[in-house]
Every structure is written in structure tokens, then in C-alpha cells.
């Protein structure tokens, strides 16, 4: 255990936080907890009553040959009743605890997921998606295992053990004390096992992950290995690792064989001998009743199992605590704060003053940007990768807070607008058209519960209504992997309809024509020219042909506006950046033409 606790050691404060997070859930639903505990106590009482009834039968009836029918019937009935009751109560109690555990984990999952979605965009710049997903699913799964196991196995067994000890004590204190020596001995043996096997268990786990890493790395780099004729060397290395793994596992098996099951079984045989011997001593002194021995034999057969079960869950506890502290840390990340105001975006005029931004201090991405976009204006932004054009869109979407300057929409600061007002007022057409595996209707609605009329209007604006009406199931046609496949152009139209459905006053296009054929580009262009004047358009484009009709084109370079004007203005400039970009794209087209020859 030492190795694993070392590698997974978390700060004490963290562990405490995780512990509080996990333990709070146990007492959250008090009535259910009390009910479950009550069931557990009753079940245990009914359970341990069985052997006592057995003892009464043997000592008071069998050995003295007193076979009065009524008394025997009462005894039999109470035996059957207690055992059926014990079985039923235990089943119910297990389900109650399981219910509690699953409800707790469900709540943790929902909380973490909702929380993660509300983390600011800056968090996602640092986060690795795979790790985040693992926090939400794998780590909460580990917590689930702890709850289910802890509540239904550990708790139940502790109470059962206590119940058995009490029942033994009621029957015969001296024999109970002999049996009781088993508890500290088994605990000591398990402790020894943990001490001896800890390093080997940790090493086994470590080697196992190295083996996995080695296989996956070899698969990925197989072409390199084969190109260098190094198959034999890599195979030998793998076999070395594999053999180390084998030896480490054998060490754990050896420790387990020495100290776990076989040792515990030996101990229980010794205690059995002790109990029978103790009984013999008492019998010689004429105080022992044979029925007591029967009851003890019965109890002892169920005594070791709970002990072994409890002690074997400790690994689980440690893993869950590590998982819990990771989840706890994630919950502590602060969420993005949104305003609660009722202000709405009514016209769509944008005013940007002195806008500055950096992702990392000392590396400015935007420097003192100033811009006035009238409502209904069509403004285009072009520039190299890293010129800051995507960042500008991110700031307009309120994904980040500017480090200097201000963005105002309809003369109110962007930061004063509520999340809802922003999302309703600003539409985004992203670079990658993302289609949900759902109906066309849902793909346009996107869970916003829009008016069906608005959805149809948006589809008409995107020139998609005709296509949809032609489909057998109309707006309910399923899209995605198992549904209808749309053409690239239709997909783009769908994305446009989606963005327009909420009647935004401002529409942002993020390189929507970067990777599409010219037919699809025309779809976008037609939509842009129809919206021109009605919706404020901010178009970040790679293809200059998409934006030649813009009211104003801004050429960004290293976070500043290098040139600005209409397409014609900019082309007329001698040595202009825009002119060079335009000529470059002309040349690109000539290259493309040559490809098809």
C-alpha cells in the first residue's frame, strides 16, 4: 500500500475536502439512512436469533427428551419466521443502501458536469479533454464503487459481526471471549499482508501500466521499428517487462497465499479447536450445555467471512479517496459569472474601444483595437493565423474578459449583458458544421425551445425549407450517422438556419468557408448578401471571395488593424497587404486548375 499511497498522495486539506464531499452524501437523506439502518439492525437481530432458537431446542427439548408438541411448533415457527424475516429485511436493507449510494453518485455526476460546462473558456485552454471526461465518468465511478461497497458490505458486516458477538455473549461469555480473539488476530494478519504485499501490489500496477504503454507505443511506432529492423530488440525489451510483471505478480500471490485466505482459514480452525476445548473444560465442571456449542459452531462458520470482506475493501477506500479529491478539486474551480440583467440586444451596433487581450502575460494578441460597426453593417476581418481574428470573435462571444478596453453593444457594455441576452442576440456560424444525431427540427432548435414558426422561417432564410419539405418526414427527418446524410452545402445551410432561428441581431462567421468547395461557398455568400443590412455581420474569412461585398474589410496583423476599407479601396493601394493576399489567392486558384489537368 505504501507505493500506491505515495504515488497518489494528495495534500491533507484536499483529502479532508474530498472526505467531506463524500461523507456529506451519506447523511444527506436522513430519513432513508435511518430507515436503512433500522432494517439492518432488525435483519441482524433476526439473523442471529436463529442459532439461539436452535440451542433452546437442543438443550431444552432434545437432550431432556421433552417433546411437547405445542412448544416445538412455537419453536419451529419462530425459527422459520426469524429466518424468512432476516432474508427479507437484509434484501430490503441492501437495496436501500444501494439506492442511497447511486443517488449520491448521480448527484455528484450531475453537479460536476453542470459545473464543468459553466467553467470559463480560459479553463478549457489549459484542460485536456480526455482528463476532464475521466474526472466526470471514471472518478465518479470509483466513488460509486466505494459507496455501494462501503454501505452494503462494510457497514452490514460490521453490524453482523457485532450482532454475532452479542449473541455469543448472551449464550456463553467465556466461549465468546475465545471466539473474540479471532478479531484482533485477523486484523493483525491483514495488516501484515498489507505491509508485505504493499510494495509488490504497487509495483504490479505500475508494471501493468508500463506494459500497456509499451504496447500502445509500439503499435503507434511500428513503422519506425520496422524501418530500422529493430523488431527483435523491441520484442526482447517487451519480454523483459513482461517477465518483471510476472515476478511482481508472483510476489503478491505469495504474500496472499501466506497471509490471506489460507491463514484466515487456519485461524478459524484454531478458534474452533479453542471453543470446543473451552466447552470441554466447562462441561467437565458441569456448566456447559451442548446446544451452546451447536450455536457457536453455527456462528463461527459465519464469523471469518465478514472480517475478510471488510479488510479487503481498504484498497477500494483509498482509490475512491484519490478519485474523490480529484472531483473535489474540479468542483472548486470557479465558474464564469454572468450578469442577471434584463437588457437585450435590440439593434446590434458594436463599438470597440482600445481593446487589448493576451492569453499569456507578455504575449499580447490584440493591442488597442478600435472599431465602430453600425447596426446592420457587414464587416469582414482577414489576416494571418495568429493575427488575432479568432480572438476578436472569442471576445465578442464573451468567452474571455478583455485585459484592456471595452466592447459595447447597443451602447451597453458586453459584460453587463446576461448570458441569455448574449446567446439570443449573437449567433455564431463555426468553422466545423456540427450536426447532432437528431431530427432536422432539433438540429435547428438546438434545445432552445423556439417557436416552430421561427424554425421554418430560419430554414426558408437559409434556402433549406424546400429541401426539407421534399423529404418524406420533413422536419422530423433524422440526421447523423444512422440518419439521412446531408450534402456539404446543405449542412452549411442547416448551420445558417440554426444560427438565424433565434433571430439574432448580430451574426458571427468564424472561417465558415475555409474548407468548403466553391458551391458551398456560394450558399454562404447568398445568405450573407440577403442578410446584409438586416443583421450585423462580422465575418472572419480566409477566402477573400466570401467577403468582397463587405461594407468594410479590416486586415489584422499581429493584433492591430493594418489596413481597412472596401474591397476596391484595399486593392487600389499599392503594396497593400490585402492586395498581396488577393493575388496569392488568385495564384492558388491557378495552381488548383493545374491539378485537374
Amino acid at each position, binding site marked *: 500500500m505504501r507505493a500506491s499511497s505515495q504515488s497518489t498522495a494528495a495534500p491533507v486539506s484536499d483529502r479532508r475536502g474530498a472526505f467531506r464531499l463524500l461523507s456529506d452524501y451519506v447523511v444527506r437523506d436522513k430519513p432513508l439512512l435511518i430507515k436503512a439502518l433500522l432494517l439492518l439492525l432488525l435483519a441482524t437481530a433476526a439473523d442471529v436469533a436463529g442459532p439461539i432458537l436452535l440451542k433452546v431446542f437442543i438443550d431444552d427439548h432434545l437432550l431432556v427428551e421433552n417433546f411437547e408438541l405445542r412448544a416445538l411448533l412455537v419453536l419451529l415457527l419462530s425459527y422459520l419466521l426469524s429466518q424468512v424475516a432476516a432474508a427479507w429485511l437484509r434484501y430490503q436493507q*441492501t437495496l436501500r443502501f444501494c439506492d442511497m449510494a447511486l443517488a449520491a453518485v448521480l448527484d455528484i455526476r450531475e453537479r460536476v458536469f453542470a459545473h464543468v460546462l459553466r467553467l470559463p473558456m480560459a479553463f478549457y485552454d489549459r484542460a485536456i479533454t480526455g482528463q476532464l471526461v475521466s474526472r466526470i465518468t471514471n472518478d465518479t465511478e470509483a466513488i460509486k464503487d466505494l459507496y455501494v461497497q462501503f454501505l452494503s458490505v462494510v457497514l452490514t458486516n460490521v453490524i453482523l459481526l457485532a450482532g454475532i458477538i452479542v449473541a455469543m455473549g448472551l449464550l456463553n461469555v467465556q466461549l465468546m471471549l475465545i471466539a473474540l480473539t479471532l478479531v484482533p488476530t485477523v486484523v493483525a494478519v491483514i495488516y501484515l499482508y498489507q505491509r508485505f504485499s504493499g510494495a509488490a501490489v504497487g509495483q504490479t500496477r505500475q508494471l501493468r501500466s508500463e506494459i500497456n504503454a509499451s504496447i500502445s507505443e509500439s503499435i503507434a511506432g511500428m513503422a519506425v521499428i520496422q524501418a530500422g529492423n529493430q523488431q527483435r530488440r523491441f520484442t526482447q525489451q517487451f519480454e523483459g517487462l513482461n517477465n518483471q510483471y*510476472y515476478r511482481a505478480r508472483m510476489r503478491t500471490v505469495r504474500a496472499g497465499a501466506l497471509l490471506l485466505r489460507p491463514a484466515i482459514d487456519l485461524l478459524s*480452525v484454531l478458534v474452533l479447536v479453542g471453543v470446543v476445548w473451552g466447552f470441554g473444560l466447562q462441561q467437565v465442571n458441569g456448566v456447559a450445555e451442548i446446544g451452546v456449542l451447536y450455536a457457536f459452531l453455527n456462528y463461527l462458520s459465519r464469523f471469518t467471512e465478514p472480517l475478510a470482506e471488510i479488510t479487503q475493501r481498504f484498497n477500494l477506500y483509498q482509490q475512491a479517496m484519490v478519485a474523490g479529491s480529484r472531483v473535489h478539486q474540479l468542483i472548486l474551480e470557479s465558474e464564469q459569472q454572468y450578469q442577471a440583467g434584463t437588457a437585450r440586444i435590440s439593434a446590434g451596433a458594436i463599438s470597440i474601444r482600445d481593446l487589448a487581450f493576451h492569453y499569456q502575460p507578455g504575449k499580447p494578441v490584440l493591442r488597442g483595437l478600435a472599431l465602430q460597426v453600425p447596426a446592420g453593417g457587414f464587416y469582414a476581418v482577414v489576416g494571418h493565423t495568429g493575427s488575432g481574428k479568432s480572438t476578436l470573435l472569442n471576445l465578442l462571444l464573451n468567452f474571455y474578459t478583455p485585459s484592456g478596453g471595452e466592447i459595447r453593444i447597443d451602447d451597453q457594455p458586453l459584460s453587463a449583458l446576461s448570458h441569455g441576452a448574449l446567446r439570443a442576440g449573437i449567433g455564431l456560424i463555426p468553422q466545423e458544421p456540427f450536426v447532432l444525431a437528431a431530427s432536422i427540427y432539433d438540429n435547428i432548435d438546438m434545445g432552445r425551445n423556439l417557436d416552430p414558426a421561427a424554425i421554418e422561417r430560419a430554414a426558408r432564410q437559409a434556402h433549406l425549407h424546400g429541401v426539407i419539405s421534399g423529404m418524406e418526414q420533413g422536419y422530423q427527418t433524422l440526421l447523423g450517422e444512422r440518419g439521412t446524410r446531408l450534402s456539404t452545402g446543405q449542412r452549411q445551410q442547416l448551420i445558417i438556419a440554426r444560427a438565424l432561428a433565434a433571430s439574432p441581431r448580430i451574426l458571427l462567421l468564424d472561417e465558415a468557408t475555409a474548407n468548403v468547395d466553391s458551391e458551398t461557398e456560394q450558399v454562404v455568400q447568398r445568405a450573407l448578401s440577403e442578410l446584409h443590412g438586416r443583421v450585423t455581420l462580422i465575418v472572419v474569412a480566409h477566402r477573400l471571395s466570401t467577403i468582397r461585398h463587405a461594407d468594410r474589410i479590416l486586415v489584422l496583423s499581429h493584433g492591430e488593424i493594418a489596413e481597412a476599407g472596401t474591397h476596391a479601396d484595399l486593392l487600389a493601394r499599392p503594396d497593400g497587404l490585402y492586395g498581396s493576399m488577393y493575388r496569392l489567392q488568385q495564384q492558388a486558384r491557378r495552381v488548383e486548375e493545374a491539378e485537374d489537368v
Partner: protein
Amino acid sequence: MALFLQLGWFFREHWRTYALALLMLAGVAVLNMSVPWLIGRAIDALLQAPAAGTPSMPASHYLLALTGLGVAVYLLRMGWRLILFGTSYRLGNLLRARFYQRLTCQGQAFYNAHNTGDLMARATNDIDAIELAAGEGVLSGFDGLLTLVLVLVMMFVVIDWRLALVALVPFPFMALGFYRISSAVHHHFQQALEQFSRLNDRAQEALAGIRLVKAMGRETVETRAFCSIAEEAAASNFRVARSEALYEPVIFLSMAAALALSVGFGAWLIVQQALTVGALASFIMYLGQLIWPMFAFGWLLNIVERGSAAFKRVDSLLQLPDSIEASGTLQPKGTAIRLQGLGFTYPDSPTPALQQLDLQLEAGQVLGVVGPTGAGKSTLIQLMMRYWDAQHGVIELGGVPLSQLSLTAVRGTFAYVPQDAFLFSLSIGDNIALSRPDASQADIEAAARIASVHDDIMGFAQGYDTPVGERGVTLSGGQRQRLAIARALLTRAPVLVLDDALSAVDVHTEGRILAHLRRNVGGQSCIIISHRLSAVQHADQILVLSHGIVAERGDHAELLARDGWYSRMYAYQQLEASLDARDREVSA
């Protein structure tokens, strides 16, 4: 049970160890049988003892025997565990090593057809499942059966057959109950696993598309969708738990019924003087030992089923022949390369990747291959190195057809640098010396100097010993590419292949590396695939590929003189370079 037949070779090979383990198991089972019997005899001895002083001699003898028996059982149990588990782990090891060895023999066609996740699953989870079947499967099958037989013998033959007949009535119901529960648990568990993977997918999808989620204000909708899956997952888990929770009542009720029956009937027998009190005690203890065999059979069915499915998956890969037939034995004479009428189509692709390609490359010459993405440039190289076998035409290396050469000789002829330079989790020095582990430090550094990466490496605190990968430094794309070039140079293979291997390196460094290469390679042929035409302008001949066909060929000057793809692309790249320069000026 077919699994045990399929694994027969292993069991036969290790029959001595298995026999020993099973013998020990049998010993444990037999000795365990004597525990209740001895206890019963001890009780009877105690009851008959005269009431004076210490317990009677026979009783203490029985107890002493019991203690010795306990120790013997302990030793035997330890023994079979070590042997049985050790052997099954050895099986796992063997399968893993074979699996890995097979992986190293497979060509690209194999890796195209199998994704990494699937291969990993077979190498890990599936082999674990087989191991489990060969270890615990054998254990539960053998031990369960043996215990059952012995307990029944003790009950029927040694104690009292009438009592046994009456007391065993509830056990068939227990076995049936176990079987049904175990199937239900298995079924619900599969469902729970599926729900869990849906949960994973959903979280992955939402987080990968977080920009869209935020831009559309879909946080609540996504959370609701996630919650509904989480609820379904919880419901599946609850079903698993509910099925599992049934085990206890079934055991409990059957045991209670069996106990009531045996005590009731046993009491009657005792009164009839047909049974002793001690014998009844032994009998009751035997009852408890019957739970395990009932449980073992359900458990056995499950793990054998899982192990057998796993074995099929693993074995199918172990039996798969090499995707490249390595039957050639000849060595190439020289390094001239000749291609004639070469044509190749990828499996599952309707259009050919290469068609009618002819080429002659003399030793020491430099060949440039350019063209738009998807033109077949990398395919050409992979065919020359025999990662794939071409369907049409001839490839000759040193005058011998590729298929007649030994695969090792073919691969040894080329020093291949791919675009996505793959680095292993080794030190930088070991990564460079990958193909020549015995290379001297001086050789490694010389190669790194030619690839213009020596200064970068010396910039790290540990120099050439700096580890790469998760636990080491993160290298930039350009650094990785230059390391891969150094690695290829160190092999001193006669043909150096740069497959767009300078794409992440800036123009100036590219020029420097190419100049180093021209000065140093002497006699080495060189094939350069590049998107940047500046990399091939000094080549002896340049192929322009388009849609798998040679669209143009010649040297730089000849190609520029034509108004084809090459000259247009060249003009484009010139314009681009000047625009970049201008962009820098503007900001400066």
C-alpha cells in the same frame, strides 16, 4: 468448455504442475472433510467423558489432530495457490509475448484494418480473461466438483443417508437460484457497461464541442441530456445490485430450510438412538460446505464463457498470417531503383492511388516528389519500402525485384523519415540511436549536427539524456522532425527518404539541413517528398504527381519553363514568402 480444449496445448505442456496443484486441492478438500467429522467425534467424546478433572483423552487427541490438520491444510492451500496462479500467469505472459511478437511482423495493411484501441483491448483485457479461466476457472471447476462429491459421500455414507436425503431437498433450488441470478447479473452488468460508455461518449462530445455549447447557450440542455444518461446508468447499476442482492436471501433461506430439516429429522434419529449428537453437529457443518460448490458452477460458467470469447479474439490475431509475405532471401546488388508500370489501389478504395508509374533512380542521385495532397507521394515511398505490395508493375532494387529480396535487406536499404516523426519514451540519444543501439556518442552527435538539432539538444539541462514523452520534455514539431532526420542519418542506409519531413521546420533551417545533406551524404541516394518546392529545387529529377499519375517530370529549370502545376505553385510560394516578409515588416 471448448476453451479448455483450445488451451489443451498449454495444459499438456504444464501437466505436471497442474497435476500437482490439483492433487493439493484434492488434499485440501479431503482434509477439510475431516474437520466436521473430528469436531463431531470430539463432542461425542466430551459428552461421554466422566465428570472429573480435565476433558477426556480421546477428545484432546481429536482436537490435537484437528490443529495438525489445520496446519496441513494451510500449507497445501498455500502450495496450490502458488502453483495454479503462477501457471495461469505464465499462460498470460506467453500469450502477451506472442501477441507482441506477432504485432512486430505485421505491415501497414494490418494496422489500417485494426485500430489501436481494439488491439490494446485484446492484448490486455482479453488475455486477462483467458488467464482467469485457466487459473480460477480450473480451480472453481475442480474444487467445486470435488467438494460436492466428498461432502455427499460424508453425508450419505459416513453419517446417515436418510438424514442426507431429507436435508438436501433445498439445495437443488439453491443451485437453480444461483444460476438464474448469475445470468441476470451478467446481463445487467453488460448493460451497465454500455450505459457507462454512453456516459463517457456524451461527456466527451459536450466537452470537445464546448465552444459551440457556450456559443449556443446549450449548457442546460447538455446537462439535462447528460443527466438522463446518468440516470439510466444509475438504473442499470441498481438492477445489477438488485440481482446481486438476491444471492444472500437465496443462500439464507435454503440454509435455514436445510438446517430446520436436518435438526428436526436428526433429533428424531437421535431419539431413536440412530444418530449421535456429535454426528448431527458434523452434519450441520457439512451443510455449510455445500454453498461453495453451488456457487462455483455458476461462476465457472461465466468465466469460461468470457474466457472463451476472449480466446477467440486473441487467437484470431495470433493465427493471422503476416500481411507482407517475407519469403525473399536475396540481397540487392547496388541501390539503383527502377519502377515500371507501377499501379496500386488501397483495399476498400474505389480509385487507384498510383497508376502507370515509371522511374529510374541511379545510386547517389536525388529525387524530388511533389504534388497536391492525396496525389500518392507517400504511397510511392511505402511501396518502395514494401510496407504494401503493389498490384501492378515492377519495383527493382539493385536490379532484383523487391519480392525476391529479404525484407530485412529492403528495409535496411532505406532510412525513412516520416512527416509525423514518432518518438519513443526514451532519451533523446536513444531515440536517435534507435536503429543502431550500439552507435557511439560521437556518431549520434554528428548526425544531430547534420540535422541541425544538436544545439537544441544541448539547450536541455540533461542534453542527450533528456527523456522524451509524457515524463520528459515536450518537443516542438520542428525539433521532432529534425530528431527523426538525425535518427535516419545515423543508420547510414544507402537511400535517405524524407517524406515531407521538413514541413514543421522554417525555410532557413530547411535550407541549412539540405545544404548539410548535400555536403555529407556522398554516394547516398536521397528521395525528398515536399510541399515546399524550395526543398526539391536542387534535385536531379523531380516528379510532379497528381491523382496518382505523373503529371510532369524534369529538373527545376525544365519544370519552371512550363506553365504547369510546378511553376504555378512555385510562383504561389514566392508570393507567400514575400507576403510573410511584408506582414513581419508591418508589425515591426
